[in-house]
């Protein structure tokens, strides 16, 4: 039973379809920035994207090679654990299905690793089957560094900390290894539709 807040009426979400807004979220038209440290600045000729942990030789793409891969453009709603949601965001990038291929061996989890040391963990089934991308354009423009550019992971069906900024690759594991925020008290899985914000939710 919740406590009624005397004199609080609130501002109902200005959305046509409130079923798009998970519990505890509010709609924003801005694009807030949340990062645990400084925004890394990297030259594109120093950038690469790597799939490792599968077999002996990591697969790696330079920026030039990566941006020559087939792209998809998706329009998705995103949900940040700090309560804001943003609808109809448009991203262009490479499908994780294409990057991972189909043979994962015994691996069942991935850790996204990033410039700046950030990591986040995901089960393979949450990043395959058309559910995740490595995006390098937002609104058909190069992705701004403070939003994760040159490239960030995009896993829109989970809270947005799973969509790791400045991503440089995916490491496959047989065991689940909690990432950065998952170690600092946030939920291991992070499904906004089950309000899995913090450890134990």
């Amino acid at each position, binding site marked *: 039973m919740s406590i009624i*807040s*005397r004199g*609080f009426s*609130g501002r109902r979400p200005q959305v046509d379809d409130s079923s798009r807004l998970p519990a*505890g979220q509010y709609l924003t038209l801005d*694009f807030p920035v949340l990062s645990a440290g400084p925004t890394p600045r990297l030259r594109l000729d120093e950038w690469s994207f790597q799939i490792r942990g599968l077999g002996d030789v990591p697969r790696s793409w330079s920026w030039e090679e990566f941006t020559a891969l087939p792209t998809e453009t998706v329009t998705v709603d995103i949900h940040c654990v700090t309560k804001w949601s943003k609808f109809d965001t448009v991203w262009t990038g490479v499908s994780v299905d294409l990057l991972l291929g189909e043979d994962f061996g015994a691996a069942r989890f991935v850790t996204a690793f990033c410039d700046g040391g950030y990591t986040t963990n995901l089960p393979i089934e949450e990043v395959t089957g058309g559910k995740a991308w490595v995006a390098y354009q937002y609104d058909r423009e190069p992705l701004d560094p403070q939003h994760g550019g040159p490239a960030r992971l995009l896993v829109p069906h989970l809270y947005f900390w799973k969509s790791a900024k400045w991503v440089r690759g995916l490491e496959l594991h047989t065991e689940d290894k909690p990432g950065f925020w998952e170690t600092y*008290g946030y939920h291991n899985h992070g499904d906004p539709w089950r309000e899995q914000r913090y*450890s*134990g939710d």
Partner: protein
Amino acid sequence: MAGTAVLGRLNWLAAKVTEVRPETERVRSIVFECPGWDGHMAGQHVDVRLTAEDGYQAQRSYSIGSAPEDDQLVLTVERLQDGEVSPYLVDVLEAGDELEMRGPIGRYFVWEDSMGGPLLMIAGGSGVVPFRAMLRHRVAAHSTVPTRLLYSSRSLDDAIYREELEGLAVHDEIDIRFTLTRAQPTGWKGYGRRIDREMLAEVSWSPVGRPRIYICGPTAFVEMAAGSLVELGHDPFLIRTERFGPTS
């Protein structure tokens, strides 16, 4: 119980307002009595949940302004233009009212005496709130860690906790510096401009001493300060940031 790892669920707790204290024209501190609260680390925040008569709910996060050692739990809240929750907390809430709270949340943007220093804090506007918790913790823990706060606000009247911060200057090795970006009183001896690289170079220690740096404020402020400190040679891994507000 500060620093206890929370392994179970963070439950919503009933928190009763025991006192409200105006800090500035736009900012108020709210003192809570919160049975079941299990302690926190300086720098952490809480989620606050409000419920309207018809059951509609809104949640937001606020930094804790009190130290783990303080008897009372204090949130300091700035009224945001067009905000949904902050105008209620700043203008409507009164002593005796109750709301729901859960936390503490965030175990990264925290500082404890055991982490050592030097400790450098860079605050913009209401970004000073978690630093008050860290400063009060530092004093309560009788820490000797060299500590500096650079605090940017529009004017002296907009500086939150101003008297308390000025009072901290009696402690050795605590250095509080203000910069006032819009209006400076006559005879003002502190900085009178937005934080820039030159100011950060003057205030921060040499990167050689590997200060622990915490930056909290609006997004553009944090981007600027963190970027400048990296350019000045500070290790990005020693810089922890907390950003708030829209980007544009």
